[in-house]
């Protein structure tokens, strides 16, 4: 890994228009894709460490029910959902983005979350209630920054106008809701079928 690969995401988050343009048209697809997965992994790691090691004053999780794999899933699944929903919508809405581009742009937009929250995991162990407001402030700042990057990334990747981007993003959230509902329905149906088949098998094996 060379120096450029590390500095590129950092440049992107401060100069998003230029950065996302490069991402779409200039840069080597494979290298960026690897970087995107690394960023997603780092965000997962940040969230897990945050749950476990955040300071007592800001950590309200019950350590008894802490599950690293689930925490990881809570990070990765929404991102993938977002990408799939966004891709499905923008294909219908004349977006120019390919799925890989959407995924890369989304992951690069998550960089501020890692960058701001990771140091706070350790810092939050040395704060009092008065200083906890800084913790929450920087947390919201990270989220706002991330949303802004998501917006710019979406706009650049699909070559949309700002208003159309906003509409697509809102619709993407709705589509995510639909997808979640369909997934639940699917899994519950599968569960029913599996239950039905296993009951029949049980019945037959006990009778014979």
């Amino acid at each position, binding site marked *: 890994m060379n120096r450029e690969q590390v500095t590129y995401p950092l440049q992107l988050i401060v100069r998003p228009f230029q950065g996302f343009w490069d991402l779409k048209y200039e840069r080597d697809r494979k290298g960026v894709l690897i970087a995107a997965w690394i960023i997603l992994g780092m965000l997962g790691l940040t969230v897990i460490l945050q749950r476990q090691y955040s300071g*007592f*004053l800001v950590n309200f999780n*019950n350590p*008894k029910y802490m599950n690293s794999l689930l925490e990881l899933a809570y990070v990765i699944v929404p991102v993938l959902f977002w990408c799939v929903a966004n891709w499905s919508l923008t294909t219908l809405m004349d977006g120019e983005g390919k799925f890989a581009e959407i995924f890369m742009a989304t992951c690069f937009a998550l960089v501020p979350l890692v960058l701001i929250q990771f140091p706070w995991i350790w810092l939050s162990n*040395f704060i*009092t*209630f008065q200083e906890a407001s800084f913790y929450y402030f920087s947390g919201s700042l990270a989220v706002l920054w991330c949303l802004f990057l998501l917006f710019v990334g979406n706009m650049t990747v699909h070559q949309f106008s700002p208003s159309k981007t906003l509409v697509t993003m809102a619709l993407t959230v709705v589509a995510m809701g639909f997808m979640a509902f369909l997934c639940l329905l699917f899994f519950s149906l599968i569960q029913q079928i599996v239950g039905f088949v296993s009951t029949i098998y049980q019945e037959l094996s006990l009778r014979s």
Partner: protein
Amino acid sequence: MPKSARLTKLTLIALCCCLCLGALGGQRAEAAEVAPSYMYSFYGESVAAPAAYQATSLYDGRTLGVDAFKEPSDLDVHPDGTIYILDSGNNRVVLLDQKMEPRGVVDSFVNGGSADGFANPQGLFVADNGHLYVADSGNQRVVHLDEQGKLVKIIEAPESELLQANFVFNPVRLVVDTSERVYVMAAGVFDGFMEFNSDGTFSTFIGANRVYVDPMEYLWKMLATRQQRSQMVMFTPTEFTNLDINDEGFIYATNGDRFGDPIKKLNAQGADILRREGNYTPQGDLIFRSATGPSRLIDIDVGDSEMYSVLDARLGRVFTYNGDGHLLYIFGGLGNRLGEFNTPVAIARAGDDILVLDKALGEITRFQTTEYGRVLNEAVRSYHRGDEASAARYFYEAVNLNANLEYAYAGIGKSELRQGNYGDAVHYFRQSMDRANYSKAYQLLRKEVLRAHFSTIMTGIVLAIVALLLVRRYLKSKARKKVVPV
């Protein structure tokens, strides 16, 4: 195998079994002596706790020598230890002394020259001067007798513009404050408690519960026509279920409110001033089956040092909280064994003991403190007095008996904080999940550590900066050397 050998083997096995059983039985008996109890942790989970109170004896009318009770509905204890039991079905008040020996029965009094009695009375209150107040529900009045049993006054249905024309006065429970104002909880009254002056005139209502509007029901009401609406149930505030008064004149009240606060402490204006600084508001059980529903609190008793106990009719449990709203201990339950009830209706403290009255069975159960209960009570008392050092000692003992008692760790932490042991204070506040105090202690600890190591830290920072500058210069010079040959 020879027959005799097999026989000895069998006997041996049988013997072993007997021994094992014996050992098991012994353990069981020991465990049954004090039933295990539970607590709620910071995360709202139920955790094991030792029993703080233990049922020691059970009394009914016959064993007390005053004939069987018939649906008794209230009891109260005078500061001198005399226990007053309101035997509603027999229209009498039974007096017992501290040792549960009968001291007398009040079933009639002289009213205007002729004998008068009670009719299905529901509530009674004993003032500190020995005067007895009875909510004589069947006769729709409150009877005030002095310590000799002579009639002082009768409070009849009041007349006031605050009341509706068809108002029926049906007093159910009552308390009296030190200036002899009578607070009556009357059935069918939604405006709060009825306050009567010492001369028996009605003055006002205090402490009405808030109306809770169910959004779904509200929607239906919006859609309904006026005629349909008149047939629907009105939104009314919930009624109180019981009340008690402490020595400072604050009224503690319970209500059947599902959505608000089921326990209230009312000041003279009727405002709720109960402190709720525990991990959750005092409400009885946190975890319950949806079929049984949440705790239905039907009686409250305020003890010394602002401790109060509430009685849950749903599962027959008694919950005790301290003045700050921290749960201290839970005991009781529904069942047929000693220490369990059928239809509990009233609780009262007799010293440190707690008496629970069972309506259907007409029995009184006396609960006495275990070592754990004594330690905890003393800890709360010491803390309330402001004696933090001795409170910390008791809390320390309590923690040794129940490591799950988060509240006790906070008590130890406060004492450590006061003594300036910030490190220990931080540790104990963390154990008790008390974030506000943890923050205070941590701030002081941080200051202390930074002050103590100021010179080391500053030297370290200066050295680091110097080292950084040197490294940079070295790297630059090296780069220049590389460039020169080219």
